């Protein structure tokens, strides 16, 4: 295949969206890290200079990805997966510790984060396994294997400790659902999350009362033609109550105080407004500052490089996890809405690309890519604007960080490479 035809068939809309996000992201990193003394944006001793270098590296990676044979990725996906698992294990021996987490290899000129590689490798491996002709996702054994592929890297990442990155892998269940995993798994999962939140907010007693009322209502509105399944209903209700009781137990026994504080902040469990404000300003300090910075931007923002809170370094980790608050302060609602729309467009575009794949592996990998990018976007922005508890993961293409940018790019462009071949149902 000639390079020219790849360029002709690549999905340019996705590329343009990608580049927009990378450019906007870098501009904001520049804003958070520049000082009046900087002479050149190409000064690689500065953070924005380094990031610019990695943008270059990523573009080189894109060229390599485009140049490689399209079936290379499917063929070697198992190898990638095993290598990435090995690299995660290697961290226990050779890992470099930064800010309390042993998540990096020190490569001299930069620190490599193998969990980033694992995201790509796991997405490939899962697609490879699910697209295998012998795999039937309706089968319990195959479900377990799929789950194992997803969970294994997560289990290795949790003890680094980096629970945020570990959480990302669970997003890959989207792929499995797309491919036919019964939806009641999803229903059960959502119910458990719902019960968990309700229990924390209102307590088991109110949950039980609410459940009882719901059942009474069900009987009251009963139609003759509809028979209420009494036994399953009872079992479900009892299970829910038991789960709710266990939530209390787990929350109070196994969670650490800082986790409890994050939840009590997120769900506003603390009723005393003074104490709540206190928690906001101490435990929720980062989020408090980032919300304030975003709020202070107003509709049009304070202007590029004019963010007072950004300049004053009030939001911690602003160039990495909290980069979105810079957008909020300097570009206002116009900027934040634009970024949210760009991401949403990119995701929807990728979904439509995935759906048009004739090849199962390509579609499944596409879903894996979207799941991983989306969960980062969802958790990161949700945290920065204060609708989700604090979970430290980067915003794709935006946050400062070399391996992050490089592997998000690789993740995306492998899919775009596969897409150039979409008209053939096999490679």
């Amino acid at each position, binding site marked *: 295949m000639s390079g020219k035809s790849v360029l002709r068939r690549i999905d340019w809309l996705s590329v343009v969206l990608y580049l927009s996000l990378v450019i906007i992201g870098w501009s904001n990193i520049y804003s958070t890290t520049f000082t009046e003394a900087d002479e050149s944006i190409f000064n690689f001793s500065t953070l924005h200079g380094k990031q610019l270098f990695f943008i270059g590296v990523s573009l080189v990676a894109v060229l390599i990805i485009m140049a490689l044979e399209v079936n290379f990725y499917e063929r070697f996906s198992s190898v990638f997966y095993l290598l990435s698992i090995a690299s995660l294990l290697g961290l226990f021996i050779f890992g470099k510790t930064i800010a309390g987490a042993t998540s990096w290899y020190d490569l001299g000129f930069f620190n490599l984060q193998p969990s980033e590689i694992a995201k790509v490798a796991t997405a490939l491996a899962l697609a490879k396994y699910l697209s295998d002709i012998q795999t039937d996702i309706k089968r319990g054994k195959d479900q377990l294997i799929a789950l194992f592929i997803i969970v294994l890297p997560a289990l290795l990442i949790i003890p680094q400790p980096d629970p945020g990155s570990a959480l990302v892998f669970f997003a890959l269940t989207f792929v499995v659902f797309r491919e036919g995993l019964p939806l009641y798994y999803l229903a059960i999962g959502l119910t458990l999350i719902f019960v968990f939140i309700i229990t924390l907010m209102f307590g088991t007693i109110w949950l039980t009362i609410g459940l009882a009322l719901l059942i009474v209502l069900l009987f009251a509105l009963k139609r003759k033609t509809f028979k209420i399944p009494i036994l399953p209903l009872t079992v479900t209700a009892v299970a829910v109550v038991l789960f709710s009781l266990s939530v209390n137990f787990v929350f109070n026994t196994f969670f650490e105080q800082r986790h409890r504080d994050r939840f009590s902040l997120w769900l506003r469990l603390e009723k005393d407004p003074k104490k709540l404000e206190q928690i906001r300003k101490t435990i929720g300090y980062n989020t408090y500052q980032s919300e304030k910075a975003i709020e202070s931007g107003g509709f049009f923002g304070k202007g590029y490089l004019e963010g007072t809170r950004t300049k*004053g370094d009030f939001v911690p980790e602003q160039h990495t996890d909290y980069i979105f608050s810079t957008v909020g302060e300097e570009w206002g609602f116009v900027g934040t809405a634009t970024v*949210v729309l760009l991401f949403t467009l990119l995701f929807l575009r990728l*979904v439509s690309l995935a759906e048009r794949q004739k090849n199962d592996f390509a579609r499944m990998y596409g879903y894996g890519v979207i799941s991983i990018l989306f969960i980062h976007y969802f958790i990161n922005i949700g945290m920065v604007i204060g609708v989700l508890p604090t979970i430290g993961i980067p915003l794709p293409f935006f946050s400062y960080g070399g391996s992050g940018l490089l592997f998000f790019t690789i993740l995306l462009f492998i899919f775009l490479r596969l897409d150039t071949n979409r008209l053939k149902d096999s490679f």
Partner: protein
Amino acid sequence: MRRILLSSVIVIIGFTFLTRLSYLQIFSFSPEQVMEDPAIKAIYDYPERGYIYDRNGQLLVGNEPAYDVMVIPREVKPLDTLEFCSLLSITKDKFKEKLHKAHVYSPRLPSVLVPQLSKEDYAKLQEKMRKYEGFYIQKRSLRYYDTPSAANVLGYISEVNEWELSQNKHYVQGELKGRTGIERYYEDILRGRKGVQYIQKDRFNRDIGPYKEGDLDTLPEQGKQISVTLDKALQEYGEKLMVGKRGGIVAIEPATGEVLTMISGPTYDPSLLVGRNRSKNYSELYYDSIAKPLYNRAILAEGSPGSPFKTLNALVALQEGVVDENTKVTCYNGFYVGGRKKGCHCGGGVRDLNSGIYKSCNAYFAHTFRKIFDKYNTTDEGMDVWEKHIKSFGLGDFLGYDLPTGRKGLIPTKEFYDKWYGDNRWASSTIISLSIGQGEVLATPVQLANMTAAIANRGHYFTPHLLKKVAGKDIVDPRFTEAKHTTIDKKHFEPIIDGMAEVYTKGTARWVRIPGIEIAGKTGTVENFTKIEGKRTQLTDHSVFVAFAPVNNPKIAIAVYIENGYYGSRYAGHIASLMIEKHLKGAISRKDLEKKMLEKTLEHEYQKPFSGEEFKINEYVW
């Protein structure tokens, strides 16, 4: 279903984010946030408060520098508290308390720790200030008074309180604001506008340059200087005369409505309310609930006007045509109302308008008053007409002068008496006290002076006011420059003024004539009562006098109200004549009279109700 699951989630989350962001950035956003932004510090440059001059360009109020010790609580490092406190001459407890208060106000913003250092303390402290991180000295100007008088007119200033801080964004903690008098009324003119400089800070609170290159910074705008209508010399002289007396003096220039003097006795030295002893002095003044030096009697003390009010009743009667100059009334050392005799001190005999005024004959005015009401079919109608005429002299309502406080006084209406006595249960005979300015009618000294000015002008007045010039330019406020007309025709004033002039030649004030000046005046002697241990007790009469001079080209209209000064010409008449002479001639020829007034006090009268013993009133001892 499975195909759109992820897309739906993507779209729903997108919407959720946009909702949350619009809540934060559109609904919660307020432009004032710049003040709360920890990254921006505002440094204020206080303007000098405007100077206040008298009508002749004499300085009344100026400024002098003072030094405040400021603190930014979170920048305070551990320090040698003992040494610092001794430098500031405050106790350690006080220091801790102040620091705590400052911290509560804001750990980040500067608060005043010790206001208004003396020059000596400042000199001592200045050199060592570097040692104390988080503290600094801020220079500021304080009020300086070039006169010991006019305290209640000029008013005082003090620091804004927390409530005002929350209400008015203009002020910041530690700033001074006019509290009473002219300082309060003309606060906006006098204070100017403070300049502000915004500094960009980082999270360690270090300066990292000007915010927005200083685009939002403003320069201070100096307060404007003003001239007031007071005559410093006359004001100071009047206050000397008032030593030991309670009451009010108001003098107005009839042609303009400019207030020449406004005196309330007892008063205080305005310098007492400046500097570090301010709060101590203020408490002493504030808690003197008997002499009430902070109470501006000239505009707040409502009392019955007494006989000067007869002139208005005479004017109403002439206007209504119920009497003329020749109408005669016989006084039998009193008159009869409903079978009861009321007394009169005029000496008895046949009275006409002229002698009725200069002899202050009660019988004449009772008779005249009833005639006004007899003209109309009902008492209600008569009452409305009478009320309309009287109120046109600025009585019974706020005058609208430029001071922040005041009282309406009281001109009773038919509704008032319907409530008091019941519908149709009263008549002109019931309210006959109004004919001689006693009973329900109440007026403040400034209202009496204004009424006198209206007579002097033969039928109109200008709202009394204190502002003469702003930044050297005469005021053009129509509130003060447009004449208010009374409902009495000009021609009716001459007979009244003739009578008032004869008060000095033949009548009740012939003892206080000023050689070479023709004065028209009217004495008043007002009965008054107080409650002592629940018992209504009569006190010595109030001495009241209104006058204007010269009769044919009035330069001054004056009202003097001396509490418990006995009959009209005694204290009030003396003081009024001295004030008029001082104003018109610049010097006093009657030295013995002046000496007597300066020395005499009424303290013994004011002690009587508090003595706990029986006491005599209206004693002739003089």
